[in-house]
């Protein structure tokens, strides 16, 4: 895959194709798998994402500790002021996948399990609202994968290394690229959507209560998806972010490297270290350890 988003956008412009198409071409050129195999694997990932959203929206799942579950259904069913819009679809989709993850259900790590709700929430939310076919959505996944691959090489995709900006932040940047792809935007628009989204997640810490992928992870997937929607909408309206996207990605990596270890998945700081965060973790973890196994 590519070392920079710029390089991929240049190639897309040269060949007159989208970023997702460039990703599919580059992947099959790498020689590990044929194009048909890559598309089939992405199509399977899409089905698993869809299944996880449907499962999570049923609302009956609880996480292993019992701290999270049921909120995807709450957002999907109760008509708030934004009820019935793309926005509620996207939020409930992201929550649903992450609730399934927390309940030991089947998800697609995209790029990680902890950030797995953002991309399906955005992509399938757009897919339903705009009646997009699966071939289009697979191209969206390819564009997202390309962005994730660049972030993996230039920065990090691990909360333990770079904080939540490297997990839900990277996922939001990936979702922004996917959204522009499936809505027919240009590679340049995708580039700006990625930058506009990622600038909003820079510095985000990883501070899960008790070290579990539950609170705030489930909600941070929903707000990550919202951030991606904001980036997509601005970019497709013509907003241009002045810092090149590769420099934004490098910045995320640099912030991650300098981030105190308390904010990198250790439950030593942030929300995990609040009085309530500590109390809930203590109660839930003790409850878990007390369970007969």
């Amino acid at each position, binding site marked *: 895959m590519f070392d920079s988003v710029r390089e991929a956008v240049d190639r897309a412009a040269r060949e007159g194709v989208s970023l997702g198409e460039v990703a599919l071409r580059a992947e099959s050129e790498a020689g*590990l798998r044929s194009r048909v195999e890559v598309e089939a694997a992405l199509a*399977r990932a899409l089905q698993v994402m869809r299944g996880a959203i449907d499962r999570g929206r049923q609302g009956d799942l609880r996480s292993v500790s019992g701290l999270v579950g049921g909120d995807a259904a709450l957002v999907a069913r109760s008509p708030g002021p934004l009820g019935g819009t793309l926005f509620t679809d996207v939020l409930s989709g992201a929550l649903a996948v992450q609730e399934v993850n927390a309940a030991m259900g089947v998800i697609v790590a995209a790029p990680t399990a902890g950030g797995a709700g953002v991309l399906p929430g955005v992509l399938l939310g757009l897919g339903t609202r705009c009646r997009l076919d699966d071939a289009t959505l697979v191209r969206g996944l390819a564009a997202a994968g390309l962005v994730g*691959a660049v972030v993996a090489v230039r920065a990090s995709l*691990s909360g333990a290394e770079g904080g939540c900006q490297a997990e839900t932040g990277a996922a939001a940047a990936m979702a922004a690229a996917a959204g522009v792809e499936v809505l027919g935007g240009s590679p340049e628009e995708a580039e700006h959507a990625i930058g506009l989204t990622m600038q909003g997640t820079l510095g985000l810490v990883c501070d899960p209560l*008790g070290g579990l992928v539950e609170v705030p992870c489930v909600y941070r997937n929903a707000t990550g998806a919202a951030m991606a929607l904001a980036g997509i909408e601005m970019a497709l309206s013509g907003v241009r972010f002045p810092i090149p996207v590769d420099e934004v990605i490098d910045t995320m990596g640099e912030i991650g490297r300098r981030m105190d270890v308390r904010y990198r998945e250790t439950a030593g700081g942030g929300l995990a270290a609040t009085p309530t965060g500590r109390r809930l973790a203590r109660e839930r973890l003790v409850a878990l350890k007390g369970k007969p196994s």
Partner: protein
Amino acid sequence: MVSLLDIIGPVMVGPSSSHTAGACRIGLFARALAGGQPGSARVELHGSFARTGVGHGTDRAIVGGLLGFQPDDERLRASLELAREAGLDVSFANTTLRGEHHPNTARLTLTRGDRTIAVTGSSIGAGRISITGIDGYPVEITGALPTLVFVAPDVPGIVAAATSALAGESANIATMRVSRRRKGGEAIHVYELDSAPSDGAVEAIRALGVRMVRAVPRVA
């Protein structure tokens, strides 16, 4: 080289690629080393596995692997109950392993019939694993390739005999490592192969008079 499918994937049971998917793969690898499903398993969790493993389903994922379930198998969630039904007796303990270990490490002591094997493995991120010890021998195995393992007398000529036996059966070696606990005793041989070894290749190795010959399929 990062592939699109490394980023959009794996398909897995949550909640954590390191604490759940990687843990399952350590169990799968240990099961294959034991030669099949063990009758009993002692699972010792170290570091972050000990601290947050239960909440991440690490215990269930390891036991699911011991039962032969893949990381995307929903039965992982119920593996502790399924183990009882399958006649696998499991016990857990938290521990601090001596020496340098990755924070996400487990030591599994498996008994199958009259044989016992101890396997130490770490989950090193994004579902990838490293098997670091077998019966006290230091090893380094990723599980991403078919792996041939055996224990042989620590005498000259075994490596040449083993590689020529593999070559005779057209098994191409990607990496190899031989390590021992002390000079002149026994040594463990680990060969990571490009494709699963044929039955003929495994028989040819067995014919060298070595013990604990195991062909472990790729688990990652």
